[in-house]
């Protein structure tokens, strides 16, 4: 149940100068990395995780949340200025952001992106604060069988991330799950797939997998494609009218319904694991255009277009934490990385989290609030600076990032074995991407694997061979039914639709 003392204690834990500085550093780092096309907050978070190893759980996770939130704001900057989204989430922002820049109003465009991003983010955080404690109370009543059903439900939901081939997606999830079985088995503690390497007794290191598959693979790919140095992609015009350099209150207020609608769309989609923020941004943009009195102005530098996309994509980040904190389900790759940070600090996200670590969770809520305010302040003063970041050469950024990954994993795993594993998984990730196998599904499968096996073992013990006993667990049955429905809804249905579209296109061309 809700305990005010715990909530206040958690919030007081969060509001310290030390945490404030860490969150601010995270926001600055996130905005900086987000502004670099091709990098993004996921890479920054993956690299930062091992460095948070030496911190306490609250500052560590608060810092990562700062990076994630900062990255969402930063990603809009290159989308607006050079028509290249810094992160995939900001792809829809280019639709109206870049045309506004071409009209000679780059600062107006970036500021609209900043304000609507903060608005959407704050909206979803409020929903998170109010909904997740209630959901956690329900989640607490779940036994091993319900948890297992929840795991099956989680796997069915990630079918929405498999891409255009169900066979490849399922194979990716299965192999991710297989990799999670390396190490001691949860019941008898017998070693599996150790190959004489004693470091593997604890399983494959989470940080090695996360960094290798998400960061190092991308770094190697970028290094291999570089042939020289980067030149400045954009110059901000020095002489802009005052009204073109800012967003007036009247302009902001005129976008209130657009932002509210976008935030609601982003929050709802973000709370459903498996759906990404770019889907929310495009959906919000389409709705804003349909409901606008002047739909023709969209795509030509309408600030409502920027407001719709940025409010939606930023509201996904807070909403993603709802399934993560209450059920232990990572909604997207950023949430999966936050889960790994929890696990590195010995905390298991899931139904018991509010009960066992209530103070930490409310501290986290405090950190989320701080991150929003700091995001606004940093963005307000840093936009011109981040625009210059786009000029930094990739040769410097990626070679330094490579070294950071090596140092980070060395620190987290305490030796070079973890670093070698990181590089091996980077190559696996590169090959998987080249052949169209979903790396995200693999990583989420790996993260969920350990809990999946444990809950399966416990469920089998509870049933003790009498499988009819499952009928006494209506919640588990409901979750299994939901799993079947969501596998169809997120996995098979979109695939059928895209096949249908493909056939129609082929028929039209022939």
């Amino acid at each position, binding site marked *: 149940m809700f305990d005010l003392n715990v909530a206040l204690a958690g919030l007081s834990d969060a509001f310290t100068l030390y945490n404030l500085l860490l969150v601010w550093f995270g926001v600055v780092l996130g905005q900086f990395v987000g502004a670099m096309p091709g990098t993004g907050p996921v890479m920054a978070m993956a690299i930062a995780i091992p460095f948070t190893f*030496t911190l306490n759980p609250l500052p560590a996770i608060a810092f990562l949340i700062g990076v994630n939130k900062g990255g969402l704001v930063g990603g809009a900057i290159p989308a607006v200025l050079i028509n290249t989204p810094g992160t995939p989430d900001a792809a829809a922002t280019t639709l109206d952001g870049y045309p506004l820049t071409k009209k000679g109003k780059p600062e107006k465009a970036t500021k609209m992106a900043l304000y609507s991003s903060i608005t959407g983010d704050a909206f979803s955080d409020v929903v998170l604060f109010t909904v997740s404690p209630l959901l956690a109370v329900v989640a607490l009543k779940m036994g091993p069988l319900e948890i297992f059903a929840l795991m099956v439900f989680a796997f069915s939901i990630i079918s929405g991330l498999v*891409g*255009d*081939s*169900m*066979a*490849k997606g*399922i*194979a990716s999830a*299965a*192999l991710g*799950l*297989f990799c999670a*079985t390396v190490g001691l*088995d949860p*019941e*008898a503690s*017998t*070693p*599996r*797939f*150790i*190959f004489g390497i004693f470091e593997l007794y604890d399983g494959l290191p989470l940080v090695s997998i996360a960094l290798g598959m998400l960061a190092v693979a991308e770094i*190697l*790919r970028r*290094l*291999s494609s*570089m*042939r*020289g*140095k980067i030149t400045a992609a954009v110059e901000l015009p020095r002489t802009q009218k005052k009204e073109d350099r800012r967003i007036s209150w009247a302009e902001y207020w005129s976008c209130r319904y657009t932002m509210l609608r976008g935030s609601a769309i982003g929050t709802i989609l973000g709370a459903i694991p498996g759906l990404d923020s770019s889907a929310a941004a495009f959906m919000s943009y389409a709705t804003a255009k349909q409901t606008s009195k002047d739909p023709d102005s969209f795509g030509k530098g309408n600030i409502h277009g920027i407001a719709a996309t940025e409010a939606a994509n930023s509201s996904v980040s807070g909403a993603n934490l709802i399934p993560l904190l209450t059920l232990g389900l990572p909604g997207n790759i950023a949430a999966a990385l936050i889960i790994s940070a929890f696990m590195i600090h010995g905390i298991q996200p899931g139904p018991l989290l509010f009960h066992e670590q209530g103070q930490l969770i409310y501290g986290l809520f405090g950190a989320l609030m701080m991150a929003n305010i700091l995001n606004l302040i940093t963005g307000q003063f840093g936009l011109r600076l981040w625009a210059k970041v786009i000029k930094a*050469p*990739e*040769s*410097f950024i990626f*070679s*330094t990032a*490579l*070294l*950071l990954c*090596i*140092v980070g994993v*060395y*620190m987290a795993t305490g030796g*070079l074995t973890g*670093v*070698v594993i990181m*590089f091996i998984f*980077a*190559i696996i990730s*590169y090959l998987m991407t*080249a*052949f*169209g*196998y979903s790396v995200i599904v693999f990583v989420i499968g790996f993260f969920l694997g350990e809990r*999946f*096996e444990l809950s*399966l*073992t416990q469920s089998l*013990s509870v049933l003790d061979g009498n499988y009819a006993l499952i009928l006494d667990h209506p919640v588990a049955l409901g979750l299994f039914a939901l799993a079947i429905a969501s596998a169809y809804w997120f996995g098979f249905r979109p695939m059928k639709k895209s096949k249908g579209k493909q056939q129609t296109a082929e028929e039209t061309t022939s």
Partner: protein
Amino acid sequence: MILNRISGLVVVALGLLLILYIIPNHTEIDEFSTLAPSTLPYITASIALIMGLVQLIFPSGKAEFNPGPALRVGFYFLLSLAGLYMMNLIGFRIAAPLLILIVMILIGERRPLWLISGIIVMPLVMWYAVEVLLNWPLP
């Protein structure tokens, strides 16, 4: 289409390798377990094998594999492993700047300021932050 079939074949081969050799030889038998240590590995490997077969027979999805970039990725992978070996041999303070120097030169960076930033400043900052401030030993 061919690439999709090849990837299916690789997954089938991997599944067979896991089921026929790796799982039986690298898991132990525990008679008292509710769930044998090898059960989940067998299930996941079998699923991968079946999906590989599906991909082999009914190829689907996008696949784009260019040998040129892949070879360059392989080269940077080997270079990084060589860098790790050197770090183990002669230590981070010498091997890290050397690795960064080679990487930056290979990708075409020639500007002295950026080279100095990458080769000297960043490894120094990392070394100072980790070894001196965090008191965490580097190789």
